[in-house]
């Protein structure tokens, strides 16, 4: 884990409220793994006070990218970053996705901005010869992100883009196709979606890893602010920032 003074290369708007921030930091780029996140001090002032966590969306050479939606003060500041500015980044944090497992097809399931970690993951999965199938969902077309996804099917609550319904409903309706194949699911999105994805995987006994969210204060294990219930030990919380953000679906009980 490092503290890096990363240089802003560009801020690009790729959707109604979806932005890519490309940053330069050789140290972070060299050490990043898909599913890990960076924790960004978006301003030099006390406003906002705490760092903001973002999945590493992609890595290229000395550069890495985050993908974000503007939801509050911190993301608003990020959205206004200018090329050449420096940003204080801590990373790469958390454990990331494990590419291991007995599968040939990787099924990516994204809900809204949960699409963020997948460009990087897809790249790494392709490197080791996995086949990629993507499902991306959102409330409306504007919330459904397919950036750098492969073989992607979409679902929207209002039917404005692809399947009408949730992304997990879409997945359910499609899963029969992969009945005789060795698959592994990689999911990321809001907790409600991850919960239904978890249920889906349990019912069908499919191997899956999910990237979770939690409010955080530190992002590296010292504040105990980001617990998630361990599924195996009732007396134990796991930390999203340190033990996660990626967990095997079997390991946690989502709130």
């Amino acid at each position, binding site marked *: 884990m490092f503290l890096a003074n990363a240089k802003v290369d560009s801020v690009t708007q790729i959707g109604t409220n979806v932005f890519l921030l490309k940053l330069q930091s050789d140290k972070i780029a060299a050490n990043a793994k898909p599913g890990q996140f960076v924790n960004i*001090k978006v301003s030099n002032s006390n406003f906002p006070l705490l760092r903001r966590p973002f999945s590493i969306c992609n890595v290229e050479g000395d550069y890495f990218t985050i993908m974000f939606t503007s939801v509050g003060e911190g993301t608003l500041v990020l959205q206004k970053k200018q090329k050449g500015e420096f940003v204080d980044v801590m990373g790469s944090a958390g454990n990331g996705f494990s590419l291991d497992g007995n599968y040939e097809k990787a099924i990516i399931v994204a809900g809204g901005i949960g699409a963020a970690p997948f460009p990087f993951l897809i790249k790494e999965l392709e490197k080791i010869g996995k086949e990629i199938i993507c499902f991306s969902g959102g409330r409306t077309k504007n919330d459904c992100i397919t950036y750098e996804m492969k073989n992607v099917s979409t679902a929207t609550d209002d039917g404005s883009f692809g399947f009408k319904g949730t992304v997990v409903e879409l997945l359910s309706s499609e899963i029969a196709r992969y009945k005789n194949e060795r698959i592994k699911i990689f999911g990321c999105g809001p907790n409600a979606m991850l919960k239904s994805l978890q249920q889906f995987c349990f019912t069908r006994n499919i191997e899956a890893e999910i990237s979770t969210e939690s409010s955080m204060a530190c992002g*590296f294990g010292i504040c105990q602010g980001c617990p998630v219930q361990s599924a195996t030990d009732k007396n134990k919380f796991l930390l999203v920032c340190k033990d996660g953000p990626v967990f095997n679906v079997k390991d946690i009980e989502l709130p």
Partner: protein
Amino acid sequence: MSAVDLSVSVGPLKLRNPILLASGTVGYGNEISEFIDLNKIGGIVTKSLSLKPRKGNTPQRVIETPSGMLNAIGLANIGVEEFLKTKIPFLKKFDTKIICNIAASSVEEYVECTKLLTDEDTISAFEINVSCPNVKEGGLEFGNDKKAVAKITEEVKKVSTKPVFIKLSPNVSRISEFALAAKEAGADAVSAINTLVGTAFDIMTRKPKIKNITGGLSGPAIKPVALAKVLEIRRNVDIPIIGIGGIFSWQDAVEFMIAGASAFQLGTVNFVHPNISETMINDLILYCEKMKIASLKNLTGSFIL
């Protein structure tokens, strides 16, 4: 090597410099050691330890507020036994003071914890948390009751072979009366302050943003309050003070020393700038040089009213 002497004493405890990391904001030292050289700072205060492991509160546990944050961790900790077994071996490797913070729900539990820990050489002092606002049993009750504070101090002192610091709650009318109670019961110093009780609501769900309903407010927002508490103690009670509350820069730290603190603790800032404790050392030297202060300890209580 600078000519400025940064060393300070907190009662009988000698520190390389006044920079301590506050309980609950540094875990047991391992994560933060990726960012700083623990050998360079005065010491660290462990997350509050209780006799048995505590799972802590149900999330959501933290939320940002203007220039601050609320937390209700609920003293989640691994318990004294596990601490001795798994954390001490790591901490042993460092030449820094380890101050063990203890939280308990009864006088007996405080005593029991102290007994189990006091023979461990790696531990330099105890900080007794009588003031955690986020735990139902004990917690606030002790912190708001002078007699209880005195009793805990007295009993812990009896069994401790190390200096004992009492960490005071700011959620009282006159903190100096608690400092006096601690002093009279034998405390070697007081730590001031713990967090202020606060809350926040989600206006859509009408639920508290912190599952525990209330949480402890920390960060720059509370600095003026913390400074006033330190000053109040300094002007009323003759006991060493460890200043805590909203320190985010070396300038903030200097303010605390001027107001009366012999040493200070960095809390919330560790979450944001985990390396600040180390970078602050040089800034303090430069300040002393500029102000022609040969020994940083001379700053303590040097206010001019």
